[in-house]
């Protein structure tokens, strides 16, 4: 995407929410052969500032530094939940929904990259505000707990750290960022993913609620794409 439009005053800043720091992130960045700016956010400061709860989430910021689309899911779709957990395969129908979601979102970003304020996907101020999710005191307290837990972990006070990280997740259960980063700090799971049995249990407990809240975007598939567990 970047190659098509880089002459047009458009850029991508990809922030890695990585409390383990750059070494974990580096292999992913190199594998993706990215040309855009990649930054490492060990404290999840960007997630805190923009009230993000999962990855990937994105924000569109115009030339004046104004938010024209606030925090939203960056093209991912809950159809992944149809995955067979034995062999990790995804039924064709769900894979097609995932692909459609990704394509729709990428095309919208591309349209904005080329057309700027003229893109139909840009919100005016009232629409942008209506799409904001604002943090409350509980969120601020969760973020403080996460930050202290992450600091204590970094200086080797592991036991104390785990208490604060758990408190953070308990205070803000809807944050997959906090939950999965805490799990990742505790131990690296299979393939480095914080996706063990307890994770899938937690996902199943969502029922028909979304893991990835769909963006308000024309053409984005709104069906669940999976059969919610009973």
């Amino acid at each position: 995407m970047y190659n098509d439009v880089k002459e047009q005053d458009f850029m991508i800043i990809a922030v890695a929410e990585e409390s383990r720091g750059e070494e974990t992130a580096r292999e992913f960045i190199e594998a993706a052969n990215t040309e855009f700016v990649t930054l490492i956010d060990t404290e999840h400061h960007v997630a805190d500032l923009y009230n993000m709860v999962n990855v990937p989430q994105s924000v569109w910021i115009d030339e004046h530094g104004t938010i024209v689309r606030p925090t939203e899911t960056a093209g991912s779709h809950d159809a992944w939940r149809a995955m067979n957990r034995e062999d990790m395969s995804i039924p064709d129908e769900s894979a097609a929904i995932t692909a459609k979601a990704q394509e729709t979102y990428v095309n919208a970003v591309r349209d904005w990259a080329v057309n700027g304020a003229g893109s139909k996907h840009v919100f005016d101020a009232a629409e942008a505000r209506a799409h904001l999710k604002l943090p409350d005191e509980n969120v601020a307290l969760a973020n403080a707990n996460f930050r202290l837990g992450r600091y204590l972990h970094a200086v080797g006070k592991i036991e104390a750290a785990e208490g604060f990280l758990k408190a953070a997740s308990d205070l803000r259960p809807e944050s997959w960022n906090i939950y999965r980063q805490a799990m990742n700090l505790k131990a690296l799971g299979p393939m480095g993913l914080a996706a063990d049995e307890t994770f899938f249990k937690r996902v199943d407990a969502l029922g028909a609620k979304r893991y990835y809240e769909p963006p308000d975007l024309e053409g984005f598939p709104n069906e669940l794409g999976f059969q919610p567990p009973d």
Partner: protein
Amino acid sequence: MVTVVTESGASDVSGAIADGEDLWVTRAEVESTIGWTLKPEGLCRGDVCVPLPDANSDRYINDDGVNLSAWWKLMDRPVLHDAAGDTWMLGASAYERANALQSLAAPDFTLPDLEGALHALSDYRGKRVFLTTWSSW
């Protein structure tokens, strides 16, 4: 020695005394610890000053120093500490975060790239920025 963590980072505060839920630091160390300046009108950052409440003023300030945790709670900000009182967290306020988002001015941040070079979001003013997050986990 007490370590105080804020959103700007962690600092070791030599003259700090942790006493239960109170964290006293010397007047001289207030600014370097929290980035707010002690002035006659109160604790100030930029144009904003939070005045000292008339009642119980000795709960917030005395000749030796300032009770940072009490001030921080007065400003509706989260205060946390470990069991030993060695490490304190003075968190950001929900109100400030929410106001910043509602202004639609993208909150600025500075983070390192893989080579350690720092980038601020505001360095890229004049371009459209697609800000996105990802992770390995």
